[in-house]
C-alpha cells in the first residue's frame, strides 16, 4: 500500500473520524460535550489499559532487552528538549519562558497520542514491545525534571542580570535584597515540590502500577478484566477523542496568535523527532511496530500532563501557546499523517540490511 492510500485508510477509522467530528462540533459552536467526569476518567482508564498490556507483554518476553532502549530514550528526550529550546528562542524569537515551556512540551510524551498509536497498530494487526509502556512512564518525569531544571537556570540567570525580577510586582515596590534572598529560596522549595508532584502524578502512578499488576497477574489473572481493559480500549479512545476534538476545535483560533513559525515548528519537529526515533529503534532491533511506538515517544507532545506542571514551574509562559500547538496542530498531524508515515518508514527500514541504515537516515531527513 502506498503512503497516500495508507493515510486515507487511517483517516477512515472511527478514532480519527470522531476526533474530526469533535473539531467540527466545536467550530460550528455546537453544545456537544463529553461530561467532565467521563473525560477525566478516560485517561486513567487508557493508561491502566496501556500499563496492563505492557506488563503482560513484558511477562512474556522479559525486560532485559529494555535497558538500552530506555537509556537511549532518556538521553534523546533531554537532547531534543535542548535543541527545541535553541530553535524556539534563537530562530523563533520566543521569550525564554515561552521557549522553555514549548521545548519541554515537545520533549515530553503525549499519553493520549501513545494510546492512539497503540490502537493504530492494533487495527493494522501489528504488535509492539510491551516495555515501551515502561519507557513512557520513565520519560514522563524526565521531561518535567528537565522543565524544572531549565526554569531554574532561567530564573537564576535573570536574577543575576537583575533585568526583570522573578517575582513580578504589580504594586511597583522595588525588590529589596532580603526579598531577593527569600524569592530565591522559595523558587528552590517550589521546584522540589513540583518534582515530587510530577513523580507522584496520577498518570505515572496508574501507568507504573498497571505495568506492575499486568506483569504479576499474567494472562490468567487478566482474563476476567480483559473485556474492559482490552476489548473496550479502542472505543474508549473514540469517546475520549470526541472531547479532545472539541477542545482542539475551540482553540483553533489561538493558533494564529502563535504565528507561522510555531505552526512550522509544531509540524516539522515531531516529524524529525519521530523519524529519528524510528531509525534508532530499528537500529536497536525493535520490531516494526515497536519502532513506530518508540518514534511516537519523541514525536508526540504532552497536552494534558505537561501544562499542569508548566503552569506551576513557568507561570510566566503563555499556556495558550503550548497547549494549542500540542493539541491543535501536532496531535491531529500525528494521528492522521505521521503515524502512517512512520509505519511506512519503519516497514521499509526493517526490510533492509542494518548495514544500509545510515544511508537511509540521510534519505529520510531530506
Amino acid at each position, binding site marked *: 500500500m502506498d503512503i497516500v492510500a495508507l493515510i486515507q485508510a487511517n483517516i477512515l477509522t472511527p478514532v480519527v473520524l470522531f476526533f474530526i467530528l469533535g473539531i467540527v462540533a466545536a467550530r460550528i459552536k455546537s453544545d456537544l460535550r463529553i461530561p467532565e467526569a467521563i473525560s*477525566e476518567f478516560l485517561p486513567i482508564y487508557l493508561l491502566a489499559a496501556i500499563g496492563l498490556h505492557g506488563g503482560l507483554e513484558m511477562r512474556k518476553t522479559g525486560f532485559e532487552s529494555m535497558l538500552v532502549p530506555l537509556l537511549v530514550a532518556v538521553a534523546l528526550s533531554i537532547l531534543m528538549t535542548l535543541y527545541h529550546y535553541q530553535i524556539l528562542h534563537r530562530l523563533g524569537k520566543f521569550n525564554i519562558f515561552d521557549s522553555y515551556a514549548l521545548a519541554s512540551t515537545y520533549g515530553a510524551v503525549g499519553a493520549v497520542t501513545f494510546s492512539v498509536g497503540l490502537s493504530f497498530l492494533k487495527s493494522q494487526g501489528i504488535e509492539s514491545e510491551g516495555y515501551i509502556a515502561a519507557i513512557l512512564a520513565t520519560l514522563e518525569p524526565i521531561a518535567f525534571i528537565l522543565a524544572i531544571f531549565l526554569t531554574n537556570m532561567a530564573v537564576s540567570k535573570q536574577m543575576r542580570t537583575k533585568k526583570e525580577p522573578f517575582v*513580578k510586582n*504589580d504594586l511597583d515596590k522595588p525588590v529589596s535584597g532580603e526579598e531577593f534572598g527569600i524569592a530565591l529560596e522559595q523558587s528552590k522549595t517550589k521546584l522540589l515540590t513540583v518534582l515530587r508532584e510530577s513523580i507522584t502524578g496520577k498518570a505515572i502512578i496508574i501507568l507504573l502500577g498497571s505495568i506492575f499488576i499486568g506483569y504479576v497477574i499474567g494472562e490468567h489473572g487478566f482474563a476476567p478484566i480483559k473485556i474492559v481493559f482490552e476489548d473496550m480500549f479502542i472505543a474508549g479512545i473514540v469517546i475520549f477523542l470526541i472531547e479532545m476534538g472539541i477542545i482542539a476545535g*475551540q482553540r483553533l483560533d489561538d493558533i494564529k496568535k502563535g504565528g507561522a513559525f510555531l505552526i512550522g515548528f509544531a509540524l516539522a519537529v515531531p516529524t524529525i523527532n519521530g523519524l529519528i526515533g524510528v531509525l534508532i529503534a530499528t537500529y536497536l532491533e525493535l520490531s516494526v511496530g515497536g519502532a513506530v511506538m518508540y518514534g511516537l515517544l519523541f514525536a508526540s507532545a504532552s497536552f494534558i500532563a505537561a501544562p499542569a506542571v508548566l503552569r506551576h514551574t513557568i507561570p510566566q509562559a503563555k499556556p495558550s501557546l503550548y497547549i494549542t500547538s500540542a493539541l491543535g496542530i501536532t496531535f491531529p498531524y500525528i494521528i492522521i499523517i505521521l503515524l502512517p508515515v512512520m509505519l511506512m518508514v519503519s516497514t521499509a527500514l526493517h526490510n533492509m540490511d542494518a548495514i544500509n541504515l545510515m544511508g537511509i537516515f540521510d534519505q529520510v531527513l531530506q
Partner: protein
Amino acid sequence: MKLFDVKLLTITCEILAQKNVLDILGKYNVSGYTLYEVEGDGSKGIRGQGFKNDKNVKIEVLLHQDKVEQIAEEIARTLFSDYAIILYVTDVNVLRPEKFS
C-alpha cells in the same frame, strides 16, 4: 444572640493557582476555608470550557480584619501578574468570632 463583625475574603482564580493560594492561607494560619469549582470570564478570557485545569476555583475565608490586609497583599504581590485571579472582601457577621481568627 449577638453577632460579631468579621471579614469574608473571596479569591477566584485558575485552578492551578489554588495550591499557591492555600499555601499563603496556611502561612497566615487561617482557621479554615471553603472552596468550589466555578467557571468565569475576565481579562484572561473565558475559563472553564476545556480541560479541568482550565476551570477556576473560588476560595472563601472568614477571618479577622487585620489578617485580611496582609493576605490580600501577599496574594496580589505573588500571583496577580501570572495567573487569572481576582479577590474581594465582604463584611459579614458571625456567631463565634473566635472560630475565625
